[in-house]
């Protein structure tokens, strides 16, 4: 019995807290495309300033690389990131330095293709063969969005 109640309560609390902070901590900025919105959080500022000086500042904003194409998936990712970032931000429970999560790294990898599939058409298809792993753009172009 107790075993059921406790987690439930915790979840409830987390959700409540999450929703609260989502609003309070300007989590709503997730719904815009304005990079400055992301920089609302001081923890995002390093990445903002590193993006400002990157080769992509004038061609791609945060969401171009950190959300998948298509409205539904886009806001799905935003919702989850928005919730977790807000939650993490409020609880202060997050790694320093920040590390992109595997799922978000995949989102970003796909983002490259959104814009560059033409130039990479020749090198990309080879991956389609066998269990051969996909080609990772970030492996070589890690700093396109953020100059270190």
């Amino acid at each position, binding site marked *: 019995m107790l075993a059921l109640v406790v987690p439930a309560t915790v979840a409830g609390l987390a959700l409540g807290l999450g929703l609260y902070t989502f609003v309070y901590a300007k989590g709503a900025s997730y719904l815009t495309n304005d990079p400055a919105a992301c920089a609302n959080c001081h923890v995002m500022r390093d990445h903002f300033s590193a993006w400002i000086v990157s080769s992509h500042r004038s061609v791609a904003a945060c969401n171009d690389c950190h959300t998948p194409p298509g409205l539904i998936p886009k806001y799905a990712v935003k919702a989850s990131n928005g919730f977790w970032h807000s939650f993490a931000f409020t609880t202060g429970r997050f790694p320093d330095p920040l590390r992109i999560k595997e799922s978000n790294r995949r989102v970003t990898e796909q983002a490259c293709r959104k814009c560059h599939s033409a130039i990479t058409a020749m090198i990309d298809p080879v991956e389609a063969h*066998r269990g051969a792993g996909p080609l990772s753009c970030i492996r070589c172009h890690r700093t396109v969005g953020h100059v270190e």
Partner: protein
Amino acid sequence: TALLVNIFERRQEGRAPFHPVVAIDDETVDPAIWGRNFPIQYDLYRRTVDQVRTRYGGSEALPRVPDHADPRSVVAQSRLDEDSRLRTMWAGYAFAADFREERGHAYMLEDQIFTQRQVVARQPGTCLHCHASVYVAYKRAGEGDLIAGFERINRMPYEEAVKHVQHPVSCIDCHEPESMALRITRPGFLEGIRSVKAAQGIEDYDVNTMASRQEMRSFVCGQCHVEYYFRGAEKRLTYPWARGLRATDMIAYYDTAAADHADWRHELTGAPVLKAQHPEFELWSQGIHARSGVACPDCHMPYVRVGAMKVSDHHVRSPMLNVGNACQTCHHWSEQELMERVHVIQDRTHEMRNAAIDALLALIDDIRKAIERGAPEPVLDAARAYQRRAQFLVDFIEAENSMGFHADQEAARVLLHSIDQSRRGQTALRDGRTAVDPFAPSTGTMGLPPTAEEAQRRAAREGGR
């Protein structure tokens, strides 16, 4: 090429980046035919005839007067003239007659045919494995069975075997005709990599079905840029990897499994010595780049933009001639700074290599003198055992072609042990000792480093950190 076109079309919403004009199958050896479908790669591939020298690599184009025996009008510089100590190290072996700086892929077949090493010694068909497009030749000689054909051609005298090939390494040796995916066509590597994986506890490893794409990017090069020897009378090409890929693992292998094998008996000392050869793949596997998932083509065939397309630069060459594309995507330092970093690493390796060669030559000279003054055989044999080790270790780094860059600390470790073995040999000889100290240094990773994929998965498990 149907499959390939489909892939391109799916990706390109109909904009295929190339138009297959000819059909290519698993018998198409001539790169010119493949080139009709992939003109960019073919043009780049043909540029491997260029010769430009770097501080320790590239190659110098030396003009020569062609003669009946050797029609080449240009060769690479002689490494023997650059450092005549090599003649002493290899005394009594074909390498003491002719050893040149290696050059581009375009020359691999002619350089093998016309080297003086073919004149001073009779070579087996095995040699072709890495100097020609032998894939189809093997299949034909084996009536469809690659390995059977490989074994048949190994046993032929070189002059006869060479009649079965026409081209240097070609598209078909690295690519599957339908998909252009990378593949391994060389029996030496198929068996070699299986033996390493077995040593790591992975049974029946089949590289062509089990390797990741990123691994394949290095394995295709590892088909040839490796240490090898000809096992037994059937001259079977063998990569001495059963104990691991490190030079010290190979010593362990040559001290036990292949204790009876010697490439030749040293002319001055009578020691049963070994010739180490181009272990780029093995040394790279111990370095920080391999550990970081950086493959040979990342540096030697970096992507290059041609028109609206990015392609792998099939002009395989020294990255020092192409630092911009080869290094700067990952390292944001200036070209000059990156070259200096390579030179610092190479100069240090070169200094250590020289010290190790001097130590070896001192040992060789000591043994020679001991023979003259009639030292007892058991004592001489102990000293010869040390020479065998010391010489293989220093030759491993001398033969490796990056002058230590592929794994700088590991290269130094190998040279340090070479000097230590020379030291033990010199003192054993003077003390008249007949016992040979065991040799089993064991740090580093015996096999290939964790792949980028593995590292990623681990990182993921740790929650993105």
